[in-house]
């Protein structure tokens, strides 16, 4: 899928209808939103993302960007 179509997909995703189920999984009770979420998931096959070792031999990093630490906060 092209980057443009990823934008399209986000435009069609009504984030007000996105929720979290009892296990913390991302869900929607709206079938259209659930379909968009599934399309997003289909775009990412985490299993295929190569992992690489930090050249310093410290933490193992995935090619997927890690979640920002609290220091990424724009406020604090």
């Amino acid at each position, binding site marked *: 899928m*092209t*980057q*443009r179509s*990823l*934008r399209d997909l*986000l*435009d069609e*995703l*009504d*984030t*007000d*209808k*996105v*929720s*979290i*189920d*009892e*296990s*913390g*999984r*991302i869900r929607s*009770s709206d079938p259209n939103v659930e379909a968009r*979420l599934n399309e*997003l*998931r289909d*775009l*990412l096959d*985490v*299993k295929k*993302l190569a*992992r690489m070792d930090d050249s*310093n*031999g*410290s*933490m*193992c990093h*995935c*090619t*997927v*960007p*890690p*979640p*920002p*630490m*609290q*220091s*990424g*906060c*724009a*406020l*604090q």
Partner: protein
Amino acid sequence: MTDTAAIPGVLDEEILTAFSDEILHLIVLPTEQCNFRCVYCYEDFSVGTMKAPVVTGVKRLLERRIPTLRQLHIGWFGGEPLIAQKVIEDISESVLMLTRTAPGITYTSEVTTNAYKLDLATAKRLHKLNIRHYQITLDGPEKFHDRTRIRRDGGGSFQKIWTNLLDLRSSSLDISVTLRVHVTPANLDVMPEFLLGIRKEFLKDSRFVILPKAVGHWGGPNDSEFNVLGHAEATQAVSALEELIRGQAGSEKVYRPGNVCYASRPNSLLIRASGDVGKCTVALSDPANSIGRLLEDGTLELREESLGPWLRGWSKDSSKALGCPLVGLPRSAGEPVLMQIGVRPPGSTKSGDVEVGK
């Protein structure tokens, strides 16, 4: 096809991973108490150490999720997390056992700590629990640091933190440390010399990076009693200090946070010591930051309508909210707007040099 990013400044992979159920980011507050009383702190310390039912709830939630996860990232925050090490150890031991049975998973963990209790023995213990990244704050040289990062009993904290940092550096532990260096009007002049000292002691070690940050009025009770740099001054000061570090020690020594706040990511949740679930680690008193509860059986009871406002940055024309969804957060009718947190208008910060915390 176009080469324009779906959201400018945001990697497509970051968009996709934010919506993945194979990735889970939990920020856990094992306690909301602290052994410090930093003058700019925004927390009210109204919640104590995480009780057994909540600890059990976290473990059961992870028991349920880990078998289908590819990435688990746990950030320990507080309060001061290292005054609740038993909670950290209890949950971490459980996570390690669970991840051993899920060989495909990448599990990382970090702690944001004032480092007062981070002696080498503690760091070694945490390392065994796979907690290997630290964010530690210094407010400049001892004289300045001890005026603002004050212990609960009123004493200074610099010497002990510095000793702990030197011990970490002298160790062979496979860790990484982000030294968050706070910039204020009071310490701005001494900061270049201080950073030279940091470079000498730490930056030849690849495990250490620096994150200069301007102190702000973050909503604490003392906000009216100390000065902060105005927005433009802060931006300029932080840039100059980053440049100084880069010039002396290389660009990799400056920590670069991402453009998307964890609070914007649907697969990132804040678990408070009380079991309340939120999104943001700053607005702890804000009702909009309470999106539900974690129960003892590991199930999450989240209000369906409470998540959407935090995710609005992914929508068209709202991408600015990705960096901080709290700013301009839409609220239900009647819901109080928390005035303590937000971007203050230019000119609202006081200038001058006033000592605080005395």
